[in-house]
């Protein structure tokens, strides 16, 4: 269980997160929805250890993560797939996947996990020696998620995985997220595509200007009038 309590984040003089509390139970899909600038990405970046100027507690299975740097966070079992995919365009598909396993030293298991990623995303196997930058947008998103999975982390945080993809591919990405959950991973998903996210989420939080304004199960929020008006187009 990943538990965030009263998290505050500051950028210079800006108070970006104003005390949010979130729980991500093991094996569940939890989503954060909200507009641009609501603080969704800041939440993920704070958990990942990328933001130093923060207050509050972040615990994972009882141990405190709030003082850890990004490398230690990955080692403790939480990985983030960043917004905009951020694959390494000059490295091959295989090298990108190996990089995802950088914090591990169990070589035989890394080899098996690469095979597992190739089974999950057969397209990546076809392109394994191609440079990441030559892949299509959808394939790059598969690579970004595959790379994150290679860390062997149990909790996968995804920042806007469907952003900038054609509608056909958006559906595919959500199928992939469901598949990752099927593999036993815990998912913390940040999305602007609120409807699709709520449909696969066990639990969801709505963020507005750095605070949680609403929470409930995915189905509850889809039915909620306020959510329908603000995020689902009536």
């Amino acid at each position, binding site marked *: 269980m990943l538990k965030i309590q009263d998290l505050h984040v500051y950028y210079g003089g800006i108070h970006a997160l104003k005390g949010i509390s979130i729980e991500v139970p093991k094996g569940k899909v939890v989503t954060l929805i909200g507009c641009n600038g609501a603080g969704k990405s800041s939440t993920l970046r704070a958990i*990942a250890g*990328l933001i130093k100027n923060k207050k509050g507690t972040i615990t994972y299975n009882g141990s405190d993560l709030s003082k850890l*740097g*990004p*490398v230690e966070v*990955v*080692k403790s079992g939480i*990985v*983030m797939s*960043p917004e905009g995919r*951020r694959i*390494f*365009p*000059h*490295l091959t598909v295989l*090298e990108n996947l*190996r*990089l*995802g396993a*950088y*914090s591990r030293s169990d070589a035989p298991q890394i080899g098996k996990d690469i095979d597992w990623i190739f089974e999950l995303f057969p397209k990546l196997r076809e392109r394994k020696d191609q440079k990441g930058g030559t892949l299509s947008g959808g394939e790059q998103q598969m690579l970004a998620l595959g*790379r*994150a999975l290679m*860390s062997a982390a149990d909790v996968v945080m995804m920042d806007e995985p469907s952003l900038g993809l054609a509608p056909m591919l958006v559906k595919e990405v959500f199928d992939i997220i469901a598949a990752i959950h099927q593999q036993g991973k815990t998912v913390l998903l940040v999305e602007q595509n609120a409807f699709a996210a709520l449909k696969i989420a066990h639990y969801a939080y709505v963020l507005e200007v750095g605070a949680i304004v609403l929470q409930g199960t995915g189905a509850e929020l889809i039915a909620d009038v306020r959510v329908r008006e603000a995020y689902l187009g009536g």
Partner: protein
Amino acid sequence: MTWAMFVQHTLNGLTLGSLYALIAIGYTMVYGILRLINFAHSEIFMLGAYFVFWGITLFYLPWALAIVGAVIVTASVGILVDRVAYRPLRDAPRISALISAIGVSFFLQNVTIVVFGALPRQVHRPAWLEDPILMGDVRVLPLTLFVPALSLLLMLGLVWIVYKTKPGLGMRAISKDIETSYIMGVPVNRIISLTFGIGSALAAASGIMWALRYPQLQPVMGSIPGFKAFIAAVFGGIGSIPGAVIGGVMLGVIEIMAVAFFPDLAGYRDAFAFVLLIVILLLKPTGLMGEKLEDKV
């Protein structure tokens, strides 16, 4: 010019060029990762040479041990420079680290003057390096064959590290996107230290061979080779390791050949590199192997 002389000049050019290339690799690796021109690099080159002769004259070490020891100590100095002068400025504007680099350069030069004195010192080469090798009409010093060969070995070792090992993969990732490397669990600071260590070790190797080739030590001996190696790195495309090698070797050969073909211009020898820099900046600012400057979509 006779055929034998041409071969001799080519070999001399390759020797000088490989020494430039070894220094240029350090500039280009650090730039590739931190976008920083490490101006202290020419002093690292100088320290490598001083440490060897310190080891020999002060501790009576045998040559082999003195050389290995000097390379290790110089690499440590390179890592220390990063820790003390650059790491605290990682999030500062790039110009701050650049100014810090210039400061470190002056500091190391002056410390060397205080410790070793400002007067040039003669280097006594081992006897087997003094006898010229004869190949038909071609007469060359053993170093003229030895330097390019050893440089090639060192460069192959570097290629192996960068393209075949896990830290090398980390280096290539960091050079493109530091933050994502962090997120993926790459220990960025450790890899940066390794980069400084490797670059400094290569500069030390170059400095030691330089001092054997031109047997004199002085605290400012790094300045001109350092500048030229920097030009070689820009010429080859800064950030690119193959570019640094090609740029360094070409600069060495051009410099030797220009003097050989136009002896009247020998006095302008050090100016050729700078002319080359101006030409390359006008015609192809990203260098021979440099990345295209693309707008991010």
